[in-house]
């Protein structure tokens, strides 16, 4: 099979220093702090209070809304309180359940028991996945049970397991493919069963030949499953680009992968699904890559959710005086302003850089590089121009930007990466989107008020 890819994209230096370091299981730390904001959508609501005893896998946070996921205690112990911590994905504050482990690490009743999933119904699988609090572990943290429930009228024919791991530095998915290949295939087959999909693809970039081999060996015995080799290119792991590369299908604007009959799950999510369904194990741990030039012992670490980032930095031999701490990869990771953070389900990696490169940005020189490389075929130059125009007071810039695809941007940062003028295009795009959101909210509020006024007047007439 030929290697497949998508148009556009870039080739940043891979820097996968930790690819050959087996995931090392870290001991449960002395204190775990489990943030309640661990998924895209509404944060969970704490269900425990100070002094409660918990066991590994017992619920500490319940989902709050449709797009939300349950959160479980990562070990057994005592709740020492509900704290306010920084949500590393957004920089905002959120609730967190602090737990003092009792050292026994006992599983809660009803968890950690084998289960034969071959006779489970589709709804049964979704319920099991939801009960285990599984979310997208590639970093996007979208609740997995929602993804496994295709909208009415859409049928799924293919599950794609995303092992592209196109971000530089990150190797947690790579290690998972080498160490948990069989579980990944099981997770994929469960996804196929839950969505009644005929075929399953495992997509891996060609810079990981050992992972390709491992996945081929694991998937070999099953019908309708195969490994698809991708050309190494950023952002190959982006959902829409991955589907285009693997199947030649283009997700329509504003649509979901389900619109083209596909559900994509990250390899880490596949393992979490397998654990949840076949072993009744809620999601309480993950692999985190710790790398960057400020680490003396970079590596991959299997840690409990809620592990302090500082413990990982220490383990990786981070030297004092680093200037940048990024959760995620260097292209789409979030720079943090504090080290007082805790591992969540979406913590793919921690990048610690000795020096923060500060780029002076200049005016666009219309070189067109962003347009040539944009994987969404947008005109990032023009979008950023409209962003600046908005900052200068041109309120019409938002609508003009929407017309040229503001909402189609996947925020991958390829345009910024190639820009010789070092413009902050993604930042401006996100700002325009946020401003548009504000305008939409204001308009809805206006409509709501107008409707209420009409109703009052109608009531007056009626009486």
């Amino acid at each position, binding site marked *: 099979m030929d290697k497949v890819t998508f148009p556009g994209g870039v080739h940043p230096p891979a820097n996968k220093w930790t690819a050959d370091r087996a995931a090392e299981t870290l001991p449960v730390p002395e204190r775990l702090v489990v943030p309640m904001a661990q998924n895209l959508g509404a944060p969970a609501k704490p269900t425990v209070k100070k002094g409660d005893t918990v066991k590994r896998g017992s619920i500490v946070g319940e989902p709050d809304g449709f797009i939300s996921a349950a959160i479980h205690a990562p070990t057994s112990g005592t709740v020492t309180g509900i704290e306010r911590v920084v949500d590393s994905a957004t920089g905002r504050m959120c609730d967190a359940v602090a737990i003092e482990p009792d050292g026994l690490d006992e599983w809660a009743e009803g968890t950690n028991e084998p289960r034969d999933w071959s006779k489970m119904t589709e709804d049964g699988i979704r319920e099991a996945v939801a009960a285990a609090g599984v979310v997208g572990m590639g970093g996007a943290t979208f609740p997995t049970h929602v993804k496994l429930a295709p909208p009415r009228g859409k049928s799924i024919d293919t599950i794609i397991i995303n092992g592209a791991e196109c971000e530089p530095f990150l190797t947690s998915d790579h290690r998972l493919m080498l160490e948990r290949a069989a579980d990944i295939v099981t997770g994929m087959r469960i996804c196929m069963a839950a969505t009644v999909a005929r075929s399953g693809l495992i997509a891996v970039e060609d810079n990981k030949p050992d992972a390709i081999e491992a996945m081929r060996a694991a998937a070999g015995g099953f019908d309708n499953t195969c490994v698809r080799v991708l050309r190494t290119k950023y952002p190959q792991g982006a959902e*829409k680009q991955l589907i285009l590369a693997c199947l030649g299908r283009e997700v329509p604007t504003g649509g979901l992968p389900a619109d083209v009959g596909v559900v994509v799950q990250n390899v880490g999510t596949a393992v979490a699904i397998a654990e949840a369904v076949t072993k009744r194990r809620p999601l309480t741990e993950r692999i985190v890559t710790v790398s960057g030039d400020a680490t003396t012992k970079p590596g991959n670490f299997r840690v409990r959710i809620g592990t302090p980032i500082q413990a990982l930095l220490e383990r990786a031999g981070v030297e004092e005086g680093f200037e940048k701490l990024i959760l995620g990869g*260097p*292209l789409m990771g979030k720079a943090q302003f504090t080290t007082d953070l805790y591992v969540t389900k979406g913590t793919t990696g921690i990048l610690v850089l000795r020096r923060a490169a*500060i780029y002076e940005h200049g005016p666009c020189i219309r070189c*067109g590089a962003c347009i040539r490389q944009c994987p969404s075929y947008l*005109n990032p130059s023009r979008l950023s121009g409209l962003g600046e125009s908005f900052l200068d007071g041109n309120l019409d810039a938002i609508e003009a930007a929407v017309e040229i695809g503001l909402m189609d941007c996947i925020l991958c940062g390829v345009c910024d*990466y190639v820009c010789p003028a070092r413009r902050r295009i993604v930042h401006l795009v996100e700002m325009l989107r946020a401003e548009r959101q504000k305008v939409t909210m204001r308009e809805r509020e206006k409509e709501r008020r107008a409707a209420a006024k009409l109703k009052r007047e109608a009531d007056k007439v009626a009486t």
Partner: protein
Amino acid sequence: MPPSPAQSETPAAADRLVVAHWPHLRAEDSTPKIMWSVVAALVPALVASGYFFGGRAYMHVALAVATAVVTEAVIQRLRKKPVTIGDGSAVVTGVLVAFCLPAQARWFVPMVAAFIAIAIAKHCFGGLGCNIWNPALVGRAFVHVSFPTDMNPSSWPVLQSGHFTANVGTVAGGVPEGVDAVTSASPLKFMKDIAGGWGGDVGETLTDKLPSLWDMFVGKVGGSIGETSALLLILGAIYLIYKGWVRWQIPLAYLATVAVGALVYAYWNLSVGPELMGRYVLYHLLGGGLMLGALYMATDMVTSPLTGRGMLIFGAGCGALTILIRLYGGYPEAVCYSILLMNTAVPLIDRWTQPRIFGHEK
């Protein structure tokens, strides 16, 4: 401003942690790197200009560059903007504007051209990245109409092979000292004569009167300082195309359109054989400022389209205007005005050639 509740509960930031929006990684290309690379690509042609036209060529380039840089710095000061003369863009403009002036132009001509290029064509429109027209060409167009005797191609020295000198140093009108022969026409004038039908026998003009094709290719002919050596201009452009800073679409479409136009004209209007027809096309390609224009002026990023398709349209438009002006216009050189006219059309071309957005129907 009193701290809001949200701020007051935020933990103190760790020492010196730098926060920025992603991506945290940038490719190595930068505006200064691109601009200085263009300067580097022009250096071979610059060195050769002194060899062909004497020290006066260097003087023109130095005056134009100095004027461009000083003008940029002064205007940026006046506009209260950061002074960015280190980015090389003013230097590129200075070199290019000098390249389209003849060596015997008076000393202030390059200064006026460079001043107009930077002050009027670039900064009146907002500075780097905002100008509609190629600044160097606007500067050249300005001095072309203001100082016609300095710019008149019929008075440019045509240095016959074996007699060219390293010291062409006098103003327009007089015979420069040390020059053995000054003929009255540049190669393009002969081409104009052919198009006008008053040049006598076409075959004789093409084979005997015009300088040899080899001389035209290496640059041993009359003309502006930097435009004559196709060889060195192409070498520099290959480097820029290899680095991706000049896109192949514009030069290819430009040169191909001129070649096809010349060939069609020769086929219908000149009763000559295929070999002479080929020579006719080559003289058009190597004559005048076409190489300089197609490789360095039309490809200016700021004033050319953003997409590959747009570049092809733009290049073809430049080529069509050039050949039409050369054949039917009242004026032998056409590159400057062709590119300026097509610069004007760039916003329209960009609008036509927007790529289809992912997930959208065309």
